């Protein structure tokens, strides 16, 4: 490895990418334009925004579907990151407009200046320029690369950002982009524009970092958190757009009251630091908050997001398609076509689909199939089938569980109650018993616990591959025992262990203004986060997928391998699949050979 820093390395590569993208592009002087959007209607964009929208950097987003492979399940969901970016710009200025409307009513002047609104809209337009093909799917691969880790370790402000936000930051802050913007985009006040400072602020808004401004007169620092919160916050323009857009275009009847929501947002000012000796404010933070009367709209927003996971993002067919596509991406990594995170920027969704013609074999040791063979499964929607569903309903109860046992033990403890000095000890015993009961109780409480180690290890690509390999080898054993031909390889099997959905993070960070002007956390005002956690827990599923004719063998093999790792399934793990009869028949056949799933 050379001795240049990861930041220099990434900056240099990104600059090269932006140079190639902008090479030969000459923005033409133009007027403001109205663009029609299916969600927000006719929206006005300023002339400089049109110049930027016409640039290859933003046009490229037309080639990246907002919902990745969801269109294989929801055929109309082909909207791209491009229209989403336009929608976010519109909503960012709508949010600013409502804040100003309120400010004019209260103080007679707008709170957010025109220049700040332009900056907000610019950050919104550019917030997704760092997205690579299939959006979050490719991000889940390059974001885990060691080189990316090196960058995060070097630049602390990137640690909280998502990988594509880091790319967006680097794109808008690269030398070529700043030069292009200053020289060729007719931005108001461009002559006095300091591109370094300006784009660092835009970049900070994209990665979710608040910009601070020093006022020399009273030596005060003003933190304009509200600007960042509009672009990347708990209820930002991004979420407001994608929740409406994704559900509407996929054909789902989800909604939230955006009008009410916009009326209820406000900017609050908090004094964060005071110089007591001099009696002056040293740090003032202006942040976004929502009035308590807007909480219902916020609940709708949170609920809609949760439902999007159930309906779209974590739909089993979407996960199956993503598992196959992940093989394509990892294949490209193995073939050194994607050996650095920045390489991912060079492809669109269509480029990856065109790989159906690629005959290079990425993993000869495990499979003779080419990248094209794998990619064609997506092109022609030959998706693998579910062969195992892992959830709390399909796992075995812990022995000794049951409410009767609990009651018996509570009776024993109750018998001791009233004896001097035992009260605290008995309370403690009851608490432990309750905790123990919920650990052992059938249903949601205990069954997934055995699975936790596999879940956390699955974040490591090596560990998931290891389980996959073991299941494949077990399938080979089953075939040999029953005289079937082994006409498959490891790539006919996929393991998908999706990340648990988390809605609470919004709930824990949204400031709510309650009567009297006090600020409370959203989670303190409504118990939505607890409900959402329970709801997500009940809906969460992990899967094994395989070729249609291998479901029975793969189901048995997967249960055997997971059993060896301490995860024991109940009858539901095979009964709840379409091929249950086939699985049962194969299991009986295997029993004749002395083979059992759970030994």
């Amino acid at each position: 490895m050379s001795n240049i820093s990861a930041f220099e390395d990434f900056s240099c590569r990104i600059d090269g990418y932006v140079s190639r993208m902008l090479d030969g592009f000459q923005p033409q002087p133009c007027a403001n334009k109205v663009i029609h959007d299916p969600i927000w209607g006719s929206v006005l964009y300023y002339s400089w925004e049109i110049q930027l929208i016409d640039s290859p950097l933003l046009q490229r987003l037309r080639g990246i579907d907002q919902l990745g492979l969801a269109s294989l399940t929801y055929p109309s969901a082909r909207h791209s990151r491009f229209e989403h970016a336009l929608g976010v710009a519109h909503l960012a200025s709508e949010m600013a407009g409502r804040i100003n409307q309120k400010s004019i009513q209260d103080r007679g002047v707008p709170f957010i200046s025109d220049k700040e609104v332009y900056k907000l809209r610019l950050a919104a337009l550019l917030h997704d320029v760092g997205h690579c093909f299939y959006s979050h799917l490719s991000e889940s691969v390059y974001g885990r690369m060691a080189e990316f880790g090196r960058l995060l370790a070097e630049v602390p402000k990137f640690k909280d950002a998502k990988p594509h936000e880091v790319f967006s930051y680097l794109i808008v802050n690269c030398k070529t982009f700043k030069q292009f913007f200053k020289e060729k985009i007719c931005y108001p006040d461009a002559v006095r524009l300091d591109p370094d400072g300006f784009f660092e602020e835009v970049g900070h808004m994209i990665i979710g970092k608040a910009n601070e401004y020093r006022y020399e007169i009273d030596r005060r620092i003003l933190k304009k958190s509200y600007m960042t919160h509009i672009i990347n916050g708990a209820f930002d323009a991004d979420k407001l757009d994608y929740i409406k857009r994704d559900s509407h275009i996929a054909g789902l009847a989800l909604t939230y009251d955006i009008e009410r929501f916009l009326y209820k947002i406000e900017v609050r000012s908090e004094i964060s630091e005071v110089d007591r000796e001099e009696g002056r404010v040293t740090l003032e933070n202006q942040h976004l908050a929502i009035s308590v009367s807007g909480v219902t709209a916020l609940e709708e927003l949170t609920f809609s997001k949760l439902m999007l996971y159930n309906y779209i993002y974590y739909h089993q067919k979407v996960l199956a398609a993503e598992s196959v596509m992940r093989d394509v991406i990892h294949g490209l990594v193995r073939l050194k076509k994607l050996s650095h995170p920045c390489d991912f920027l060079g492809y669109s969704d269509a480029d990856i689909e065109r790989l159906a013609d690629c005959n290079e074999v990425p993993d000869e040791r495990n499979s003779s199939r080419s990248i094209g063979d794998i990619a064609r499964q997506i092109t022609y929607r030959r998706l693998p089938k579910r062969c195992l569903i892992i959830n709390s309903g399909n796992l075995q109860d812990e022995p000794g569980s049951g409410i009767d046992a609990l009651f018996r033990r509570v009776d024993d403890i109750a018998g001791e109650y009233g004896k001097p000095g035992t009260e605290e000890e008995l309370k403690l015993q009851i608490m432990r018993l309750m905790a123990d009961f919920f650990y052992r109780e059938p249903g949601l409480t205990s069954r997934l616990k055995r699975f936790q180690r596999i879940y956390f290890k699955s974040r490591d690509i090596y560990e998931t591959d290891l389980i996959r390999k073991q299941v494949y080898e077990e399938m080979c054993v089953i075939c040999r025992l029953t005289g079937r031909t082994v006409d498959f390889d490891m790539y006919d099997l996929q393991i998908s262990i999706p990340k648990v959905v988390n809605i609470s993070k919004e709930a824990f960070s949204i400031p709510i203004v309650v009567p009297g002007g006090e600020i409370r956390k959203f989670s303190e005002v409504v118990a939505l986060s607890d409900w959402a956690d329970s709801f997500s827990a009940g809906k969460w599923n992990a899967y094994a997928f395989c070729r249609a004719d291998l479901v029975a063998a793969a189901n048995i093999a997967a249960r055997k391998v997971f059993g060896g790792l301490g995860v024991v399934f109940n009858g539901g793990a095979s009964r709840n699949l379409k091929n249950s009869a086939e699985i049962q028949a194969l299991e009986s056949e295997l029993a004749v050979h002395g083979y059992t799933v759970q030994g």
Partner: protein
Amino acid sequence: MNTGWMTDDEYYGLFRKPTLASGDFFRLLFAQLHLMGIHSIPRDFTAALYKLESSGQYDSLFAEIHFRDNGVFVFSDEVEDSMAEMQTLRLAGKTDPASPVMNLYFDPITSEEILREFPQDIADAMGNLAAELAAELETDKK
């Protein structure tokens, strides 16, 4: 036809392997709390954890946990993600949704198993952190 593929070592070497991932941080922390006899903690304990992170004493443990201050509250995506994971996998949860307290559904076998997954120095450091966190939460209660 191949232009040259890489070995498994080269391939897996391209991906990062954090010393202590955020999910593992909480498995280990809760296992240590359980072994110390602590069976419940406040659901919202981010501020207490942030205080310990800010001390700089446990930098290696906190490498994958990041805190954000929105000017009003301190919050952390990693803490919240991990809490959702803990609850879904039933390592933690609430008996009463309205209660601010979360139960840790650990048992000695699970706790010991978790401890054995990590190098001794990391497990020991987490033991110290757990003790400090317990003291911090006790102070908050008072």
